[in-house]
C-alpha cells in the first residue's frame, strides 16, 4: 500500500480536502471524536454540504452541532479497481444517512468489515481516520456495535 510520507504507518494516502471556514467543522470534528454538521438555529435543520443559508427557513443563523455518528447504509459499492495510491482495494464506498435526519447523508468508506459483507440498510457508526499533520479527520463508518 502506498503511503503518504507524513501519515502514520497504518493510515493510507488520501487526497485531502482544501480546508475552509465553511467546511472545517466537518473535517476536523474527528479531533474530538465528533461528527459535526451545520445546523440551523431557527428550525433545527442539518445542512450538508455546508452552506450560508438554511434552505428550509432561509435563516442565516447557522451553528455547528455534533450528531450521534449513527447512520444507515443507503447504497454502496465494493471498489476493486486500483485507481490511485491510497486505500487498498477491495474497499467499500458508500452513501450513508445519519439517523438524525432523513436527508442528512454523506459519501464515505465502510471499514472494519469484510467488504463483501456490507449490505444496504446496514446500521453503521462513525470512526475517524486521523490525518493529524494535515489537520483532517476523515469520517469513515463501521458496523454499529
Amino acid at each position, binding site marked *: 500500500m502506498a503511503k503518504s510520507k507524513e501519515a502514520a504507518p497504518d493510515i493510507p494516502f488520501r487526497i485531502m*480536502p482544501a480546508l475552509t471556514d465553511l467546511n472545517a467543522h466537518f473535517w476536523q470534528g474527528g479531533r474530538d471524536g465528533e461528527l459535526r454538521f451545520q445546523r440551523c438555529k431557527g428550525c433545527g435543520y442539518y445542512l450538508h454540504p455546508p452552506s450560508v443559508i438554511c434552505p428550509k427557513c432561509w435563516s442565516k443563523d447557522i451553528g455547528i452541532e455534533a450528531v450521534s455518528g449513527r447512520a444507515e447504509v443507503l447504497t454502496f*459499492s465494493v471498489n*476493486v479497481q486500483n485507481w*490511485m495510491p491510497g486505500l487498498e482495494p477491495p474497499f467499500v464506498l458508500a452513501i450513508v444517512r445519519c439517523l438524525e435526519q432523513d436527508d442528512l447523508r*454523506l459519501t464515505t468508506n465502510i471499514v472494519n468489515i469484510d467488504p463483501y459483507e456490507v449490505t444496504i440498510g446496514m446500521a453503521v457508526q462513525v470512526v475517524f481516520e486521523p490525518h493529524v499533520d494535515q489537520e483532517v479527520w476523515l469520517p469513515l463508518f463501521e458496523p454499529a456495535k
Partner: protein
Amino acid sequence: MSEATDLIGERRAVISGVGQSDIGRRLFRDPLELTIDACLAAIEDAGLTTADIDGLSTYPGATGPNGFSGGGITDVHDALRLNVNWFTGGLEYPGQLGAVINACLAVSAGLCKHVLVWRSVYEGSAQGSGGRAAVMPGGGSTTTSFKASGFMQWLLPFSAPSAATWIAMYAQRHFHEYGTTREQLGQIAVNSRKNAALNPKGIYRDPMSLDDYLAARMISTPLCLYDCDVPCDGGTAVIVSRVDTIPDLRKPPIKVEAVAAATHGRPSWDQYDDLASMPAQDAGKELWKRTDLKPSDVDCAQMYDGFSFITVAWLEGMGFCKKGEAGPFLEGGQRIALDGELPLNTNGGQLSSGRLHGFGFIHEACVQLWGEGGDRQVPNNPEVAVACSGGGPMASTLLLTQGR
C-alpha cells in the same frame, strides 16, 4: 404537450451538418487538429463555408484535466479565422449536449444563423501508459499538493476519484430496489459491441457474448470492465442553423422537435434524493411536455453510456419503460437491438466506440435520421430519434425528427 407552441423556441433551430475526426484509442495527434477536422467536416456536410459560421458553442471549453478538452472557443475561433456574433463555452452545463441546446437557443433568439458546436477529447493519448491515474487529480502521486475542493472534496478523500464508483452505487441501489441483475444490465454492453462491429469507426469490434461480459473483471460492484466506456481520442461537431436558412443548406436538415435540460432537486452525485435514478428522469419529464410525440414514436435512442447504468437511468427517465423496469426491458436484448422496438446506441456507444463524451450520440442520431448509417442503419427509415447526454446531476436531451 403542455407548453404553448410559440414558447418552444428550439423549433426555430435545425441541425444542418455533422462531422467527426478520426477516432481512435490513442492517436497521438494534436487534439486541436482533431477538433478542426471535425468542425470542417460538419461545415462541409451542411453545405456551408467557414464564412457562414457566425456562432460558436462548446463543452467544456479550454479547461479540465489533461485530455478532457481538445480545444476551446478561442482556439477554434482563431484557427478558422471566424467572424462570430455569439459564442459560449463552459463546464457547468446540463450534460455535454447542453452546448447544442445553447446553440439552438441562440439561433432561435436571432443572435446568429449557423452555430458550430463541438466536443473533442484526447483522453486515450493523455493517459498514455500511465493508466487512469495519469489523468486524475493528483496524477497518481502520493506527494501531490493537490487538495480537493468543490463537490470533489466530498468524494476524493474517500479514495473515489472515478465516476465509475459513484455510478456503481446508483446501480447497486437499483439492483436492491427493483431486483435488476447483471445479466440484464449486461445487455447494454453486449448490444453496443454488436453495433460497433458494424461501425467502421468503432473501437472495440470483436464479438462479445453475455458470458464474456459476466466473466469480465469487476471494477466497482456491480459494474465490471465492460460497463465502463473507453477513453479515446476524437472530435465531433454539429452545425445548428436557423430554420429560415434551410434553402442555403446542402440537404434537408434534422428538425429539433424539443429539448430539455432539467435537474430537479439537489444537483449532486450523492445528495440527489433518488439514488436509484438520476436527473435524467427530470429532463425526460420536461421533454415530453414540449411535444405531441410520445416515447413510442421514437425510432432509435442514442443515450449516454459513460457507464452502462446511466443508460438505464435514461431508459426509465425518458419513459421508454416504467421506473424500475429497465431490467426486464433489457432482458435478452431483443428490444434494444438494431431491429428491435428501440434500437439503442447504434454506433456502438461510448462502451465500444469510444468516449466521445456525449457528442457521439447526437452525431449518430442525425446519421440515422439521414439514412447514412451504412451497415448499422436502423431499418424502415427512422423518423424520430433522441440524443441524451450526461449522468449524475447533469442531464440534457434532444428530440430530433427527419426534416423531409
